[in-house]
């Protein structure tokens, strides 16, 4: 049964501003990444893809962690808003994870000499991508709203275990991929200050893009839920 008590989030007034803020921050981040940040002494300009690759990695983790929280929310409260949040974050997460893999592959060719290698980080990321594609497939094959939401929520809860596996795979196994640069235990990020600042702005820009996409997708999903309810009535 679908309840219509949940209010759309963010409200109509906030959503356009979120999009504009995301675009503005992205433009600043693009300028900093391509012009302001210094060239890397070892990799040259090729390294600049880090300003896309790392934020995408962060967003993949964030999006799937939000799926986990929203799935818990649905299982505990059965409020449709949580299901809308879960599907929205899963779709955006799959998009960003796909882009994360492609960006990594583009970076790998000039630095490692190959588009793809059987490295733990790459494989675990691809597996995480497949896991959430499976999540979306499960949703698309279920017709009843409540059952679909519950089934998807269970997968959303158990799949989150893959996030630490992906992040820590480079520490647990012999890996060609470099060790964590930003989120690493016992130390500050191993980056030049200007590079670190640019990376920080890029992460903020991509995170705003994520929230803008999320807000639009939640709105679409809630609208879809409302129309389904009206059609039944």
């Amino acid at each position, binding site marked *: 049964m679908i309840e219509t008590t949940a209010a759309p989030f963010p409200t109509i007034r906030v959503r356009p501003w979120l999009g504009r803020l995301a675009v503005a921050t992205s433009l600043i981040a693009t300028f900093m990444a391509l012009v302001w940040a210094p060239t890397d002494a070892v990799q040259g300009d090729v390294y600049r893809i880090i300003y896309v690759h790392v934020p995408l990695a962060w967003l993949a983790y964030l999006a799937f962690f939000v799926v986990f929280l929203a799935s818990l929310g649905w*299982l505990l409260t059965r409020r449709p808003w949580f299901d809308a949040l879960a599907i929205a974050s899963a779709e955006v997460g799959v998009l960003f994870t796909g882009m994360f893999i492609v960006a990594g592959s583009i970076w790998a060719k000039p630095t490692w000499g190959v588009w793809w290698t059987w490295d733990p980080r790459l494989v*675990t990321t691809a*597996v*995480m991508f*497949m*896991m959430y594609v*499976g*999540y979306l*497939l*499960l949703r698309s*094959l*279920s017709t009843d709203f*409540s*059952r679909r939401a*519950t*089934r998807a929520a*269970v*997968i959303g*809860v*158990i*799949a989150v*275990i*893959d996030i630490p*596996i992906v992040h820590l795979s480079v520490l647990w196994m012999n890996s060609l991929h470099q060790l964590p640069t930003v989120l690493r235990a016992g130390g500050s990020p191993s980056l030049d200050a200007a590079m670190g600042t640019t990376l920080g702005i890029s992460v903020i820009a991509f995170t705003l893009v994520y929230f803008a996409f999320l807000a639009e997708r939640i709105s679409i999903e809630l609208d879809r839920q409302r129309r389904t309810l009206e059609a039944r009535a």
Partner: protein
Amino acid sequence: MNALDRALLVAARELAAERRRPDGFVAALTFTALLVLMESLAFGPGQARQPGVASALYWIAILFAATLVATRSFDRELEDDAIDAVLVLDGGREALYAGKVIAIAIVLAIVALAAAVLSLVLLDLGVALAGHLVLVGVLGILALPPVIVLVTLLALRVRARVALVPILSFPILMPQLVACTQGAAAALTGDASAALGWAGILAAFALVYGVLGLTIVPAAIE
């Protein structure tokens, strides 16, 4: 009747049904043997006899066998709506989950034993640490069913269930597959500490997903 008794009752019922009509067991056994043979042939005898490759081929076959056994088990439940009778009982959902996990682990253990003998004989593998290999095998068998039963339950009345169960469960089982493969390879080559380390990881995964399954199953089945 306490929760354990209920789970054991479901497991006994499952094993009785499997003994009466062992189609799931026979299918899994045949499929596993066929897969081990075909994979070994595809790799060629030289490569397939390497401990890492032989272990990987074996555990991939067992993984497929586990999904076959679980899918067939739930097919049987749906044929005469027997599952509904269990679900309406007090504590029936947890008992169904735990009972299925126990029963499928037992059936899988028999399949795994037969496949292990087949692999060891046909590939003429030397076993440096037999006890460690058995430990990894037992914990591997315990680590797979909690996830596969949970996913099969979720996909119970979904279209394309046969395809959906491996699509959803295999990525979740990837760490267990790596641990099984590496642990078995370490036992074959005589690396005791590595074998025990991977066995510990398997025990942890079996425990985590077992508890998670029991916690989440009441909410997962509608």
